[in-house]
C-alpha cells in the first residue's frame, strides 16, 4: 500500500466542498445580478426614499431611540405639509448595533442595492467616521446629527455637513467665557481634568487645559480612563487628594454618573463641576440624587426653550406625539432633516452636487439656530451652556438662548 494513498484527502470531500461553494456563490451572484437587472428607473411619482443605518441596539441604544424618533417626527411633518418636491418622504432604517462593519455594509447596501434617493447620517463619531467616506465616494449628501469629533472633518469632505451648532473644538468656549467673566475672587484656582478615552472628550480636555491655564487656572490632576472602567472609587480618591476647585469631567454616557457617585462615596465636593453628556441623560437626577444636581454645568447642543425658528412648534408637536419633551438627540435629528429639506427645496431637484454647493454657500435656519458651514462641513455656530438650578436644567449662555441670567457659583455638598 503506497503511503501517499493512505494520506491523501478523500476526493469526495472536496467535491462536496466545491459543490457547496459553487452553489453558494452562484446564488449570491444570482441575487446580485437579478437585483441590478431589475432596478426600477427613478419614479418621479413614487416616494422619496431616505436611507440610514442607526445603532438602534448596542451600547448607545438608549440615545438612538430618541434620535430615530426625531427623524420620524421630521418625516411625518414634512409629509403632512405635502412632502419634498411633491413626493412623500419614506425612511429606510437599518440597525447596525453600533458595529462599524455593519454600518459600512448597511450604507453600501442602501446606496448600491436599494439605490435610495437621499441619505441621513448615523449617531456617534465612531460610526460617522467610517461611513462618511462611502457617502463621499458615491457623491451623496451626508448630513449627520451626532458626532462632532474633529477627525471626521479632517478629511475635507465636500458632501459632509454637521447638524449641531458647532463641532467639539468649539465645545469648551461658552464655559471658558463664563469663567473669564467671573470676578477674580470667585474664579477657581485649580482644575482637575478627568475624561474617558474617547476622541471628543480628549480633544476638549486638551483645549480646556490650555485655555484655563491662560486664565490662570492650574491643572492639578489630568487622567484618562478606559471606556470599560466600572469602578471610579480610586479615581475619585485621587482627585480628592489633589483638592481641585473645579472638576472638568469629559464623560460619554454612564461613566459620568458613576464618577459622581464615587465622589459621593469618598465625600468630595468640588466648588465647580462641569460634565459633558451624562447630565442630559434622563436617569441623571435619579441616579445621583435629585438634590445633588445643583450647580452642575453641562454643554448642550439644543434647548427646548430657545427661540430659534420652528423650535416651539417642534417642542409642542413632539411632546404631543411622544408624551415627553424632545431630548437633544431627537432635536439634532430633526435639524438634520431640516438641513436636508432646505437643500433639496432650494435646488429643486435631486442633484446631490448642487445641493452640497448650495449648503456651503448658504445659511439654514434650524431649531438649533442658524447654521452655516466651512469647506470641510464644520458648522460655525456655538453650543449652549446649561446649569442645573433648583432641579431644572437652565440655559446660561449664549445670551440669545439663555433662560436665566445668573450663575450659581458654588456647588453645595452632597447629601
Amino acid at each position, binding site marked *: *500500500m503506497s*503511503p501517499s494513498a*493512505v*494520506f*491523501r*484527502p*478523500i*476526493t*469526495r*470531500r*472536496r*467535491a462536496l*466542498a*466545491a459543490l*457547496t*461553494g*459553487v452553489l*453558494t*456563490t*452562484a446564488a*449570491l*451572484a444570482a*441575487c*446580485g*445580478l437579478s*437585483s*441590478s437587472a431589475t432596478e426600477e428607473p427613478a419614479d418621479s411619482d413614487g416616494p422619496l426614499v431616505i436611507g440610514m443605518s442607526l445603532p*438602534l*441596539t448596542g451600547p448607545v441604544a438608549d440615545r438612538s*431611540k430618541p434620535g430615530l424618533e426625531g427623524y420620524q417626527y421630521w418625516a411625518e411633518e414634512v409629509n403632512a405639509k405635502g412632502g419634498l418636491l411633491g413626493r412623500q418622504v419614506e425612511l429606510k*432604517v*437599518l*440597525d*447596525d*448595533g453600533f458595529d*462599524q*462593519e*455593519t454600518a*459600512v*455594509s*448597511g450604507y*453600501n*447596501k442602501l*446606496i*448600491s*442595492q436599494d439605490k435610495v434617493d437621499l441619505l441621513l447620517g448615523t449617531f456617534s463619531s*465612531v460610526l460617522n*467616521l*467610517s461611513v462618511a*467616506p462611502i457617502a463621499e465616494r458615491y457623491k451623496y449628501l451626508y448630513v449627520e446629527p451626532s458626532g462632532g*469629533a474633529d*477627525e471626521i472633518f*479632517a*478629511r475635507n469632505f465636500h458632501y459632509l455637513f454637521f447638524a449641531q451648532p458647532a463641532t467639539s473644538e468649539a465645545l469648551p468656549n461658552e464655559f471658558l467665557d463664563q469663567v473669564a467673566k467671573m470676578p477674580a475672587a470667585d474664579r477657581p484656582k485649580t482644575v482637575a481634568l478627568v475624561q474617558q*478615552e*474617547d*476622541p471628543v472628550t*480628549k480633544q476638549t480636555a486638551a483645549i480646556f487645559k490650555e485655555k484655563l491655564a491662560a486664565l490662570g487656572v492650574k491643572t492639578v490632576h489630568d487622567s484618562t480612563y*478606559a*471606556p470599560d472602567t466600572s469602578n471610579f472609587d480610586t479615581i475619585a480618591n485621587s482627585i480628592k487628594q489633589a483638592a481641585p476647585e473645579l472638576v472638568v469631567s469629559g464623560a460619554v454616557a454612564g461613566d459620568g454618573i458613576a464618577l459622581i457617585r464615587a465622589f459621593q462615596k469618598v465625600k468630595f465636593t468640588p466648588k465647580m463641576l462641569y460634565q459633558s453628556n451624562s447630565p442630559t441623560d434622563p436617569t441623571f437626577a435619579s441616579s445621583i440624587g435629585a438634590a445633588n444636581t445643583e450647580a452642575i454645568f453641562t454643554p448642550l447642543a439644543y434647548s427646548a426653550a430657545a427661540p430659534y425658528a420652528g423650535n416651539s412648534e417642534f417642542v409642542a408637536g413632539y411632546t404631543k406625539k411622544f408624551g415627553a419633551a424632545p431630548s437633544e438627540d431627537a432635536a439634532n435629528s430633526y435639524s438634520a432633516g431640516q438641513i436636508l429639506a432646505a437643500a433639496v427645496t432650494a435646488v429643486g431637484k435631486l442633484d446631490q452636487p448642487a445641493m452640497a454647493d448650495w449648503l456651503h454657500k448658504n445659511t439654514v435656519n434650524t431649531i438649533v439656530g442658524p447654521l452655516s458651514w466651512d469647506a470641510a462641513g464644520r458648522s460655525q455656530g456655538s453650543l449652549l451652556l446649561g446649569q442645573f438650578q433648583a432641579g431644572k436644567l437652565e440655559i446660561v449662555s449664549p445670551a440669545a438662548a439663555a433662560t436665566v441670567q445668573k450663575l450659581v457659583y458654588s456647588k453645595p455638598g452632597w447629601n
Partner: protein
Amino acid sequence: MSVARLPRLLLAAGVLLVALVPLLTPNTYIQNMLILTFVLAILASGWNVMAGFTGYVSLGHAAFIGVGAYTGGILAAHWEVSPLLVAPLGGVAAALVAFVLGLVTRRTRGAAFVIVSFAMLELLGLITRNWTSLTNGSNGFLMPLPGWDLRFQNWPFYYALLFLLLLSVAMTAGIRRSKLGLGLMAIRDDEVKAEGIGVVTSVYKSIAFMASAVLIGVAGTVYGYYVSFLDTSAMFDISLSMEVVLAALIGGRGTVWGPVLGAFLLQPLTEVTNTTMGGAHAGAFRLVLFGGLIVVVTLLLPRGILPEAQDFLRRRRKTSPTGTRLADSAIPAAPSSPRLEALAGRGGDLLRIGNVSRRFGGVTALDEVSFGVPQGSITALIGPNGSGKTTLFNVVDGTYRAGAGGVEYGGRDISKVGRARRAFLGIGRTYQLPRLFDSLTVLENVAAATGEFRFSRLARSAVSGAEAARAAELLEFVGMGEYVAAKAKDLSYGQRKLVELAQILMLDPAIILLDEPAAGINPTLVKRLAALIRTLNNSGRTFVIVEHDMHFVMSLSDPVVALARGRVIAAGTPAEVCDDPAVLDAYLGDDFVLEADTIGSAR
C-alpha cells in the same frame, strides 16, 4: 480517471466564478459581502492550523488582524506608500506576535492556553489603544483614501483578499500533507508522547503558530485599507474571534476546506440578517441568533459539515480489517539496526542511574536510587505500586528532571538533554497504558517516530517511501502487518501494545524501557511478546522491564533490581533477589517460589 478529476474541476469552476463576480456585477453590496467573507475565511483557515491541526484552541485570532492592520497602516503612513505595498510586513508582525505567544505558552496547554489567548487579545487591544503616539489611540487611525477610479471600486481589495485566501488554503493543504503536519497532529493527540518519539514540539509549534498568523496579518493590512479607518475595539474584538471559531467548527476543523466552507456559510448569513432585519428588537434578536447558533453547532454538529459528510460517504465503502487473530507463526528476524552495529562490542553499563532523587511536594518518589543496566541485558525492575518505578522511567526518558543525581547513557551524562534528543540518542519507552495517536492510522503512528530532526525534512511528504517501507517491516515484525491502514483508535488493547512497540523500534533504540508490557493481555500474546523481546535482545538491544508478572519477567531477565518506597532494596540475579528477605517482605510475600520452568523460558 475522470471521476477523480471531477471534484477538482468543480472546485476550479467555483473559484473562477467567485473571481468573476466583480466583473459580472457592479453591486458593491455583494462585493462587500464577499470581501468580508474572504477575510473571515482567511482567519478561519489560519486558526485551523493552530487549533485544528495542532490542537491549540485560540480565542485570540482577531488580534492578528489588528496587528496586521495597524502595522501596515502605520508603516504606510510613515513611508508614504500604499498600504498594499507594506501588507507583507503586516504579516511579519502578526507572525512575530504568534511566535511570542508560542514562547510564552511553552508550558501551558488546554484550557489554560485558551485563557491566555483571550488575555493576549484583550491586552494587545489595550496596548494599541493606549499607545496613542503611535496608533492615535481611541481616535482611530485614518488610512489613506484609495486614489483609483471609482469604476474599479473594490477590485484591488477583492482580488488581493481572494489571492490571500487561495494562498492560505494552499498552505494548509501543504502542511497537512507534510511531515510538519504529521508531527502537528501527533502533538494534538498526545503532546507528551510526541516529544518522546522525537518530535521536537517547541520547533513544530513555533512554525505552526507563525504559519497560522502570517497570512491573517497580511489580510489585516488589506482589510484596514478597505475600511479606511482603524478602531481598536473593532480590530481586537472577542466576538470576531468567536466568529472565527464558529466558522471553522461549522465547516470542520482539521480539514483543509472546512473553515473556508464555514466562512462562506456564516458571513453571508450574518450580513443578510444584519441588513434585512429592522425594528427595535432586531439587535436583541441577532444576539440570540448568534449565541444560539454557537450552541446548536457545538451540540449537533461538533465535528463540522465536511467530516460528517466524509463519514457518511465512507460508510458505503468497505471497512478496514479488524479482529483477525494474531497468527501463531514463527517470529521473524529482528529488524536491522545501524546504531547497534556502531555500539557493538562496548561492554559495561549502557545506562547508569547515579543517586537519583525526585520529590513531588512532600512525597519522595525516588530516594538516592543507584544501579547500572549492563549493555545487552534484559534488566527487570520490580517492586510494589508506588515504589517509584514509573517515576524512574520518567527520569530516564526525560519527562522529569531528577531533583538530585544524574543519569548516564553510553558513558555520557544526559541529565540536561531534552526528551526529543534522548529519543534521537536511542532511548525508547512504552507506557503502562499504550499511548498512540488516535486520529492517525497505524502506519502513520509508526512513521511519526523520527530518529533525527532536519528542517528540510519538514516540508516533504508526511510519510516517505523509505519510511513507509521501514514502518511496514516493523509492523510485520510485531505481527500487525495487516493493520497498516487501520485507525489507531479502532485497535484493541493488545494490538495497541504491539503497535507502540513497533513505534519505538522505528527510533532504532539501543535501550528500550517497557512499562508493564505483559499487563492485561492474554497468555498467547504474553508468550509472543517474550519471544519478540528475546529476539530483539539477541540482536543487541538492551531492555529494562517493569513488571508484576514474576514468571514473565524472571524468565527473560538476568539482572533484577527491586525498588520499594523509592529506594533500591535489592539487586542481583533473579534467584538472589527472590530469596532476599527485604524483597519478600516488601513485595513478593513469604510464600513466593520461583519455579524452574516458567512460561516461555529460554532454557
